[in-house]
């Protein structure tokens, strides 16, 4: 069981990360991945994600462990950017590897739903009007509630 959880304070290459993860889970029959990126067309000039080191990464590790206990996975990758990034930049890459695809889809979806609302991350975006802090969305709570 490979659990790879990291914060990246600079740009990362999703294809290279996925290739490395894939190589680490040879027994898997399927790998599902989700890549979140900065929208390129929404007038957002920059996105900044701030974190709190004593809590953010430990929180991610706890989430990965929860997913790994809930589903029979061969591996789980959770990589999240922090710092300032521009349009189109990768923000988050989650991948789950398992013998069968449904488990990998479910674990990836579960991790993303919990990342969205439960992580110790604070985001602000810069548009032509200046910087603006992003508030929590009600939908995020509903997304998490799906998992009971």
């Amino acid at each position, binding site marked *: 069981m490979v659990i790879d959880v990291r914060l990246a304070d600079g740009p990362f290459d999703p294809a290279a990360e996925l290739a490395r993860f894939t190589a680490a889970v040879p027994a898997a029959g399927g790998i599902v991945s989700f890549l979140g990126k900065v929208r390129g067309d929404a007038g957002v000039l920059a996105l900044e994600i*701030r974190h709190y080191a004593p809590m953010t990464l430990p929180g991610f590790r706890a989430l990965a462990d929860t997913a790994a206990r809930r589903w029979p996975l061969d591996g789980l990758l959770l990589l999240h950017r922090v710092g300032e990034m521009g349009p189109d930049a990768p923000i988050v890459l989650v991948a789950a590897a398992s013998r069968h695809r449904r488990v990998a889809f479910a674990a990836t979806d579960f991790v993303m739903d919990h*990342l969205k609302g439960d992580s110790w*991350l604070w985001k602000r975006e810069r548009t032509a009007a200046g910087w603006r802090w992003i508030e*929590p969305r009600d939908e995020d709570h509903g997304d998490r509630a799906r998992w009971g």
Partner: protein
Amino acid sequence: MARLVFLGRLEDLAGTAEMAVTPGPLDQVLAALPRDLAVALLDDRVRLALNGQILAESGGIALGAGDELAFLPPVSGG
């Protein structure tokens, strides 16, 4: 000294990410801060973490030398 850490918009309000303060009861520490900052820090939606551990409630907290108290406003979601 003890340290206060401000996350998210609280950092902007405080004008700094961290602040060294004289150890002591939290009430006393907050009383020494600008009033608008102290009010924002006491907002119900702001969680507190002492040395990386979330506090169930802030009443009766005292900061010792070397303690780090973080103020965590609501997280942003995706």
